[in-house]
């Protein structure tokens, strides 16, 4: 029983990490048709800005992370203005996000006092606070609880905005048929910056939430992008509920393999690929020729 509770709790913890990253990717894809590979890179930039202000310059924690997220949002606006708007093909913009990812990763090393070691500790004010889980011989830190709360908040918030608000409707309309959206009076030059700013801001926030739990460096936070990508395919790149469900499924499979099948080395790492293959086969078997075909489906 103890192990079962541990499996569920740890699975939920890991799942939140995947879900938060994947939701940011789904938001961008669903509203622009672009797969935002730069997610991790933007987060690293925002994280280092916040860490710099807080740790090196003595800023209070919350203003520092606010500035960090602000930098991420600004990056999104700049990227939209100077790249996404000028490159009309979503596929090419996807490739451009890869370039941005590499650029931002390298940028961390350009600032001498950022990249002079292999990582940075970026504690939140809630470090060393934890909540014991009854019957599990296990405790959850406040940072992890805050991460969980944010996943719920953003899941609910994005779901609501995309389905119930005029802004969300405009975002989806621009994605589905830009020409028709313009004819209907929706100004793409207003909607697109909102999408990119929101998505990059979410990248920054994700890093702020993960850095106290992990470490702040330019690689580990971006390493989850591959697994998050798998999770987004579970949701067909558009469905937030399925994306979150996929994140939890992946994490529970990984955790249960590690805890119940410790000798099955490699299986835990194989789950993302197994899930990806199963999802793609299932979608094609169902007659869906491409993931894009489902892009008009409601959330």
């Amino acid at each position: 029983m103890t192990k079962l509770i541990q499996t569920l709790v740890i699975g939920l913890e890991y799942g939140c990490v995947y879900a938060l990253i994947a939701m940011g990717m789904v938001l961008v894809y669903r509203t622009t048709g672009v797969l935002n590979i730069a997610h991790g890179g933007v987060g690293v930039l925002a994280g280092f800005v916040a860490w710099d202000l807080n740790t090196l310059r003595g800023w209070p924690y919350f203003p520092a992370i606010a500035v960090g997220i602000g930098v991420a949002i600004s990056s999104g606006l700049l990227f939209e203005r100077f790249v996404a708007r000028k490159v009309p093909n979503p596929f090419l913009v996807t490739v451009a996000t890869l370039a941005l990812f590499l650029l931002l990763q390298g940028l961390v090393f350009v600032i001498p006092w950022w990249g002079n070691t292999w990582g940075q500790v970026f504690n939140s004010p809630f470090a060393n606070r934890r909540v014991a889980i009854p019957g599990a011989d296990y405790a959850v830190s406040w940072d992890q609880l805050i991460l969980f709360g944010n996943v719920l908040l953003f899941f609910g918030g994005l779901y609501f905005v995309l389905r119930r608000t005029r802004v969300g409707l405009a975002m989806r309309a621009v994605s589905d048929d830009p020409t028709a959206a313009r004819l209907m009076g929706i100004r793409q030059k207003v909607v697109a910056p909102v999408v990119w700013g929101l998505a990059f801001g979410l990248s920054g926030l994700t890093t702020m939430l993960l850095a106290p739990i992990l470490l702040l460096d330019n690689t580990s936070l971006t390493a989850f992008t591959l697994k998050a990508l798998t999770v987004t395919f579970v949701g067909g790149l558009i469905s937030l509920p399925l994306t979150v469900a996929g994140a939890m499924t992946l994490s529970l499979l990984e955790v249960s393999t590690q805890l119940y099948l410790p000798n099955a080395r490699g299986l835990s790492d194989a789950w993302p690929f197994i899930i990806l293959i199963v999802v793609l086969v299932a979608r094609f078997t169902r007659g869906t020729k491409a993931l894009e075909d489902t892009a008009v489906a409601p959330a």
Partner: protein
Amino acid sequence: MASRRLFVVLTAGLMIPAACGGSAAQRAALKAQSQNVSAQGGGGGAAAPSGGYSSGDSGSAAAPSDSGSAGVSAATPAAGSSGGSAGVSSGGSGSASPAAASASGSAGRSNTPSAASAAGTASGSAGRTASGSGSAPGSPSAAAAPTPGAPGGGNAVGGATDVGVTASSIKVGHIGIYSGPVGSFGANLSYAGRATLQEINDNGGINGRKLDVLVRDDAWDGTKGMNAARDLVEREKIFAFCCIMSVNTSDPLTPYLDDKKIPHIGADGWGEPQYKGAWTFPVSASAVTEAHMLAKWQAQNQAAKRVAILYINNPTGRAYVKAYDEVIKKFGGEVVFSQPATFDDPGTTTFIAQARTQNIDTISTYLDPGIFTRMVREAAAQNYKPKNAFSGAAGLYFEVTPNFTGPNGEGTIAATHWETNDQDTPGLRKYKATVEKYYPKMDHSTWTKAGYVGATIFGNLVKSLGLEVTRQRLKDAADRLNDFDSGLGPHLTWSPGHHRANKTIYLAQIQRSGDKFEYKKIAGPLVDEYAESN
């Protein structure tokens, strides 16, 4: 139009990190290198000391100057000149060499041959005069004897005696870890060897030849490393490899070098396959030796009985687990469970949860400092620490590790293969002076010392060959290395079929020092009596 714009964006995205990347230490070092080469190119008093590179303290050559980057921008070695000065220069400064063009990412910050100069000629003469003396400490006893039938001797002695050798330069291949999951601290491992090679050049080169060091990045990925190695061997035509501190490349490189008959002097030695190579000469100890000595010491001194191991899932990591288990069993203990870790795991909490549930008294690890730090911090979040705290292979032994792990890391024991950083010995002082001259912010670790030792031996061996520098003669000389004392602890001896020169382990423990934590030596030298004899 859109495609052209995208091309510009992509190009910028890929080139800017390559051009600008690198830590402050690296840039400072590259600047220093550029200055040194510039000084040589301008004839800035690069007179070589008669003792050559081995007397590092007497290096009056190549005083840094602000004479611009003329030396760096020179593109190709002057093959016809006598005693040129091909240096370990910076490709990041607009080099025109094919090597720099083919390198990716950080590897682009590698090196190019630099210009021949009058100073180089002078140093060449000085070097030749000294070449026969063999007076460098640790030189192989009979290394100066020429080997009949050595390949590549078609030209006059002192000219192009073998592949990658000209009258003025020797092409040396080096592969470092400049990117990838451990790139942020892996670069230092490469810098130490490069600093030592640069010092050799700054002191006049070897017998009139400068070392033209071609650097590549493997991102701690054996596939990338092997691609880089093939490129260096088959396209760049290097003479030999020196001091590769990346086990994921050194291991698969070993049989390839046996096939091609190319020496690799100063390999990292962390992986067992390296000891099976006739042309690979490791300087550090293996992960198996680390596991042996940690298990024995923890069993004898900490009464370790129930051990859990978290390891990076590669062949060396699996060998570490097996070796630890074999020795701890001799003392009545056992490895209760082990768990592989990868760089894209969001945490290590399943490992911590199992360790707590199974009443583990010792956690040992084969990890990089990043995953290890994460594990210790997650254990702290669980308010958990086993009775004997944590231990691990040399991957933990970095100066910055203790401050990252925090209070929960106190008591952690790390294996290292050389005298620990907290000691004050002449050998350590000389090592630090050498590498910090070029890379002032060096994070001294097991592998930075190994790089220094490997490059020093390489220089000594090549010097002992005199003017007839061939691969076969270098290999033969390496096989005669006898009781080489780097000043950092173990004395190294190689002989044919026996390249396991270093079976020595030192143990350092994270201890509180005021409001900080740092490694302090607690044991060593410990010699691995369980190691294979090869």
